[in-house]
């Protein structure tokens, strides 16, 4: 492009020739141009000479441009941020990281009033890019600063690499040619990316924002579907991080609700026992039939649970009680056995203890009515008397339900947090600052 200082192209009229059949003059339809060695006229069926210079232009052009075909054809117009733009240029660029080449594509968009914008595409990830009007601020003491500040936001250094232009088509606002090199440094603040591009005589900063392929397709009314995005891109917005705050807030709100339910609904109802009594097990006297029945007590309200608490002053001893909760009117009975045992002592590790002097059991779904307990105690016959007491409470709060509820609330919050963390790890694993593998179990690989 050493055309000198004269005003460049645009004013020149293109030289145009029609590709017509040399025999009959009819227009010719071209198909599968790249492979065509000869072309047949559809009107008179004569074969066109493949050495026709016009046909050779087309075939050479096809061969060159079929290597890297832009996903958005040059000349396509689309609307971005309310302004119409035309795709006027396309380039493919490559960086090498650890000897592995990574290619991406850049499209130049133009509006004769508003100027240039760019679209970049890598593995189905798109960015809408414009040149920065404000200069980002970096710490000049470092050759590669780890942060850049742009319009009050902090961008984190992602990668620095040398980019090479492999292929270029159409128009660019600067004189791009194949082999051109630039040092690229990307800073990310998803969904935005701040890029510094240093060429020999110029430093350019641009600001990009992540765009989904389907939005590019609808902006340019392209047929079919965009290529699927693979992997996590450097400034791809995390589908989870935006939700983390909301999920934890919801979790906090629901947990407070759960606590309020527990305090306001269940705790007061369990305040007073409906039955309480103390007994003595005299094992010496307990020959024959040791079982007995208690006085009756009233269970009120809706069908609900019943809690039976057994306390016994055992020391290195045990007592076993066979219970039956019996409805006086229907005779319906709930049988259950409970053991109270407590052992303690000293050994070389210090003092120890095992068991508890108190046992609690919850009998679920007991309808209202008059009830009594039948109790049959058992104990080690070698030991002396054991005093024990029995308490019955109606409608006790079952903490396990709250625990299950709490876990049910906690689970999605933890899950989303975990997915967000792994998304961020995938993002940064492609950067110059990969996350340390210590936390990662790698089991998801």
């Amino acid at each position, binding site marked *: 492009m050493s055309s000198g200082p004269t005003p460049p192209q645009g004013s020149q009229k*293109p030289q145009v020739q029609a590709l017509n059949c040399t025999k009959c003059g009819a227009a010719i339809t071209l198909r599968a141009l790249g492979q065509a060695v000869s072309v047949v006229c559809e009107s008179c069926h004569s074969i066109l000479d493949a050495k026709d210079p016009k046909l050779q232009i087309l075939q050479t*052009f096809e061969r060159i441009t079929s290597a890297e075909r832009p996903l958005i054809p040059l*000349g396509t117009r689309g609307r971005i941020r309310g302004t119409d733009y035309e795709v006027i240029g396309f380039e493919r660029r490559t960086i090498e990281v650890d000897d592995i080449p990574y290619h991406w594509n850049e499209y130049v968009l133009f509006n004769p009033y508003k100027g240039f914008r760019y679209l970049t595409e890598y593995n189905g990830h798109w960015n809408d890019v414009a040149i920065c009007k*404000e200069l980002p601020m970096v710490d000049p003491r470092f050759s590669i600063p780890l942060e850049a500040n742009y319009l009050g936001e902090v961008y984190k250094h992602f990668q620095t690499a040398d980019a090479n232009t492999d292929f270029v088509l159409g128009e660019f606002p600067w004189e791009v040619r*194949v082999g051109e090199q630039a040092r690229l440094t990307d800073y990310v603040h998803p969904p935005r990316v701040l890029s510094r591009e240093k060429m020999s005589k110029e430093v350019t900063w641009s600001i990009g924002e992540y765009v989904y392929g389907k939005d590019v397709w609808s902006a340019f009314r392209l047929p079919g579907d965009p290529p699927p995005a693979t992997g996590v891109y450097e400034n791809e917005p995390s589908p989870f991080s935006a939700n983390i705050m909301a999920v934890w807030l919801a979790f906090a709100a629901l947990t407070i609700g759960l606590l309020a339910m527990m305090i306001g609904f269940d705790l007061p109802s369990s305040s007073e026992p409906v039955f309480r009594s103390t007994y003595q097990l005299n094992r010496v006297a307990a020959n024959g039939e040791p079982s007995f029945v208690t006085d009756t007590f009233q269970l009120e309200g809706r069908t609900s649970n019943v809690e039976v608490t057994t306390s016994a002053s055992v020391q290195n001893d045990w007592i076993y009680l066979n219970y039956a909760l019996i409805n006086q009117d229907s005779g319906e009975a709930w049988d259950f056995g409970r053991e109270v045992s407590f052992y303690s002592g000293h050994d070389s590790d210090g003092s120890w203890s095992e068991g508890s002097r108190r046992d609690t059991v919850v009998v679920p779904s007991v309808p209202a009515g008059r009830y009594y307990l039948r109790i049959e105690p058992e104990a080690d016959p070698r030991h002396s008397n054991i005093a024990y007491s029995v308490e019955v409470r109606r409608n006790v709060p079952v903490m396990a339900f709250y625990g299950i509820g709490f876990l049910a609330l906690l689970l999605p919050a933890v899950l989303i947090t975990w997915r967000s963390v792994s998304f961020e790890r995938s993002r940064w694993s492609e950067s110059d600052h990969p996350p340390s593998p210590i936390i990662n179990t790698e089991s998801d690989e």
Partner: protein
Amino acid sequence: MTQPIATCPNCGAKIIFKWSSSVQTVCEYCKSVLVRSDVDLKKVGQVADLPPDISPIQLNAEGNYRNKAFVVIGRILYQYDQGGWNEWHLMMNDGTSGWLSDAQEEYAISFAATGSTTGQKLPTESQVQIGQTYSWNGANYTVSVITQAHFRGVEGELPFQYWDKDDVAFADLRSSSRKFATLDYSDIEPVLYLGELVEFDDLKLKNLRQFEGWS
């Protein structure tokens, strides 16, 4: 933008190629396959074309900057190795002179800084380097590009004599805000212009050049 426009050799209808280097199209009227023979095929895929120097600004265009109306009364054209740009001379409604540059359709308004506002001696052309920072009027400016430009012509009215130039150097400086500065080395003494990058829509321009197919 540069969709080359030609005439169909068969039927005379207007034909448009899709982009600057495209070589083939089909006439919409007579359906002839049309081939361009003026495209340098060696450059296709290798070198980008530069978009033509077109600016929507023209003489007698009117606009508004910081609540001051202006009219475009003159123009200096420059050419450099990446294309061309214009410095449009503005007459503000308070009688002062301003400049509107349109390099690569990035618009900036600037005014010549007087000696008292800069306070110190300006760096010479040999002193100025990319990445250097200068402070003028309380703002920091960093040199982002140094351009060797070729003077291509003038049009309309200018505030000074300017016709016998050849190659001139400019240093463009940017700041962390939209403020920008240009050091103009076209005279013996450097001249500093201070201004800001502006949005096209904010200038509320009228009497613009019209482009076919664009509004």
